[in-house]
């Protein structure tokens, strides 16, 4: 691991200023992904700004009847929150489908949003990777791509966003709140938070350098049946091959987002509009522009079937 200096400021404004002030500075929350990448020298920050003292560890009701989740709330605390379990069950389900108990106790809301891809070529520093080393090429294209993206890819990158939590936040229309070093703040709809790889796969999100996530807000509850279905190689503690986050109302309408298929949570509103027509109709629209590889073409029927099982479960209940 490369050497770095470390500080623990007491306010969000100080933290944002601290990262803006120094080149090579990064925020540190739980550290479960960043520290792993630092050991491999995929991430080489020269200065870490620890955000644990910023008092961002509360979940508060909003005036609009929703919830404001502090950036530093752990995955376990968020999933276990009574209000989240009752009214945003898809979020509890998604979080509990990811990682292990030890990791969820340490990983945070903001950190989970910012976790980096698990593409094996991103991790293998002997391979070219446009995300790790811009311009070096993509070894995943033409390589082993079973886990990788089927839609929204570019000729520079076919990595997936690996997380579960953000897929649920996508169907819940969550908003990411941030502050900048100059004191300005903004609210980014979750749909605009993660990016497609395009020509700049090294840029995962639309955050500006030094911009600090302070919270994620959820609008008021929308009712419905909340489901997160994750298909993976093991029963527990594995990344998704395909996942489906769904909130389905009694009339069969609802919202659907897919994980494990793209560089961001994949939600197509025109596709979920035909939910009452069944899973085939939804996935035909959601994946109309899919460009799978030979290795990962199985993800398309798998996504359809995962959604079909969710719909069928609702009918039999």
């Amino acid at each position, binding site marked *: 691991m490369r050497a770095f200096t470390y500080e623990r400021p007491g306010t969000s404004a100080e933290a944002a200023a601290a990262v803006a002030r120094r080149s090579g500075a990064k925020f*540190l929350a739980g*550290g479960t992904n960043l520290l792993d990448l630092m050991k491999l020298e995929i991430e080489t920050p*020269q200065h870490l700004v620890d955000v644990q003292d910023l008092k961002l560890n509360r979940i508060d009701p909003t005036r609009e009847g929703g919830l404001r989740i502090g950036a530093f709330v752990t995955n*376990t605390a968020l999933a276990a929150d009574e209000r989240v379990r009752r009214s945003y069950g898809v979020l509890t389900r998604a979080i509990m489908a990811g990682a*292990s108990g*030890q990791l969820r106790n*340490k990983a945070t809301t903001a950190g989970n949003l910012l976790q980096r891809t698990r593409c094996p070529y991103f991790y293998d520093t002997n391979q070219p990777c446009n995300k790790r080393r811009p311009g070096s090429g993509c070894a995943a294209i033409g390589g082993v791509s079973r886990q990788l993206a089927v839609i929204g890819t570019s000729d520079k990158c076919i990595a997936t966003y690996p997380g579960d939590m953000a897929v649920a936040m996508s169907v819940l229309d969550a908003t990411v709140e941030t502050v900048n070093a100059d004191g300005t703040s903004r609210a980014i709809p979750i749909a605009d938070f993660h990016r497609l790889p395009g020509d700049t796969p090294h840029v995962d999100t639309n955050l500006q350098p030094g911009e600090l996530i302070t919270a994620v807000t959820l609008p008021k509850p929308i009712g419905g049946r909340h489901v997160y279905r994750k298909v993976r190689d093991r029963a527990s503690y594995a990344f998704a091959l395909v996942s489906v986050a769904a909130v389905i109302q009694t009339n069969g309408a609802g919202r659907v987002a897919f994980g494990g298929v793209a560089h961001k949570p994949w939600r197509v509103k025109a596709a979920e509009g035909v939910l009452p027509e069944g899973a085939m109709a939804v996935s035909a629209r959601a994946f109309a522009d899919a460009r799978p590889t030979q290795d990962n073409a199985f993800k398309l029927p798998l996504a359809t079937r995962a959604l079909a099982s969710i719909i069928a479960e609702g009918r039999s209940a």
Partner: protein
Amino acid sequence: MTSELEISRRSLLAGSAATAALAAAPQAEAKPPMTTRPSTLPVVLTVNGKRHELMLDTRTTLLDALREHLNLTGTKKGCDHGQCGACTVIVEGQRINSCLSLAVQHHGDAVTTIEGLGRPEKLHPMQAAFIKHDGYQCGYCTPGQICSAVAVLDEIKRGVPSHVQADLSHQPQATNLEMRERMSGNICRCGAYSNIVDAMAEVAGAKL
């Protein structure tokens, strides 16, 4: 015979570590110049009830602080990447992977390691149950398994939900299915899983 066995086991471990290192070998030409000099900071940890004042390189993980600086070698380094759970310790009441945490992040925190749970003459009930149910073979993952198991029963008691819970509004129970799911972050290459769950079930039965 013993030393031969030890040597072969050591070289096996070294061999697998080398494979992992090869897969992860950083590309020398891609390295930016090192511009930050090693930095040290004072870190205070209360480990198993005892306060320690350390001066540590910022890069020191909590795991290395425990093992290399406090000589508490009960906590094991398996993968060092949060995948195996051998390094599990309990920090401020929560189990975490000590390999994926910097010691400086835990300045002021209370840490419980396997040494703090029990001692040979006064075993923690979970340690006694692991012995009774043969919950280990080589023993390398065992300290992490036991720290995790103790924390899992506490999480169930506190109502922390899980992936296998059918109804999120119900209080979870220490069933076989629940314990298997909640222990998935602890790998045992000897495959003592069923005996580990038996040990946990005994402690849960006595406690819940």
